[in-house]
């Protein structure tokens, strides 16, 4: 006899081996909160949206931002801001649409794909924010060189000393380093959080995909 058939024989007569939960015990269970990975992904995603919105609001009130007001560069800043909000709204819509389609009654593969899709939307949102951060930094840097009297004076002074190239290079390298560190820390954080949360799902999804080849 096949090993599994031996197991099957035992499996089906084993119904009385389990503790029998009463009506009340089951009733109490349905009142409790779920702690599924979907719920965690949902919470973390909302935190991500909140974080980036918070960062943009927070930056608005800082000293350096106030300095930008003098640049007379609304033509650049306002479109940049509007694009940022439109894209945020779009990602928010996508995220909720994906989240709504997650259902425990789908087959195993579809369920995994829907969860991964929700995750992917947030990943794209984070990627968008990082790109947005880089573009904004370049724009701001350009505006500073172009319109900030303080910076222009420094450039002129450096040029008089024959160190204009050194001055530009110093600022650009420092900015790039700061960006790299900031992006690196953020990516490491995402990698850790989602790596832990989705390790099992990814492994199981791979296993299912392997069957299709």
């Amino acid at each position, binding site marked *: 006899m*096949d*090993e*599994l058939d*031996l*197991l*099957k024989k*035992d*499996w*089906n*007569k*084993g*119904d*009385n*081996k*389990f*503790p*029998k*939960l*009463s*009506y009340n015990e*089951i*009733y109490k*269970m*349905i009142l*409790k*909160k*779920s*702690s*599924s*990975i*979907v719920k*965690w992904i949902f919470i973390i995603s909302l935190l991500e949206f909140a974080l980036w919105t918070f960062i943009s609001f927070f930056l608005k009130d800082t000293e350096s931002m106030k300095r930008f007001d003098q640049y007379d560069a609304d033509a650049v800043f306002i479109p940049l801001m509007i694009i940022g909000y439109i894209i945020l709204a779009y990602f928010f819509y996508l995220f909720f649409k994906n989240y709504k389609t997650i*259902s*425990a*009654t*789908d*087959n*195993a*593969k*579809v*369920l*995994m794909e829907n*969860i991964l899709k929700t995750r992917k939307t947030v990943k794209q949102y984070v990627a968008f924010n990082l790109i947005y951060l880089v573009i904004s930094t370049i724009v701001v840097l350009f505006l500073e060189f172009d319109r900030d009297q303080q910076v222009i004076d420094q450039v002129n002074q450096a040029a008089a000393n024959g160190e204009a190239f050194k001055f530009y290079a110093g600022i650009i390298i420092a900015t790039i380093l700061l960006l790299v560190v900031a992006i690196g820390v953020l990516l490491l954080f995402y990698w850790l959080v989602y790596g832990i*949360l989705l390790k*099992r*799902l990814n*492994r*199981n999804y791979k*296993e*299912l995909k392997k*069957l*299709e080849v």
Partner: protein
Amino acid sequence: MNKELEHSFVELLEKHQNIIHKVCRLYTNNYDAHNDLFQEITIQLWKAYPKFRGDAKFSTWMYRVGLNTAITLYRKSKRSINTQDFEGVEFKIKAEDYDDTEEQQLKVLYKAVHQLNDIEKALVFLYLEDKDYREISETMGISEVNARVKMNRIKTKLRTILNP
């Protein structure tokens, strides 16, 4: 949620609770983890219940949600580490059923099944529940042919685990 819905759900679940216990038996190996997973499956079933239509069998519907929870949705709690092992603790064997060699063999078999990965366990579970390949393929989202091939591979794998 309305009371009537709650009542009908709890009643149905009470009747079919063994399905959840069986899923837990394959996917956990101690008492706390068993209870944790049981709890999460119950919540997932309850959340999905308003969309449950009578055209599917309640038990068939339970298989799907139960396995999905065990494979995908459930987050293993920290409590499940370093707690007492199941063996001989929870499941009492009735005296008249006791057959030493067969019992020994079964013990080894269950241990071997526990070494399979999550997907393999799901297929074994459906197989043990006497589901045909059509239902296995529909529950897992793979083709019938692939379900069959995988099942054969699992049998070979089990044999290798049992006779290294």
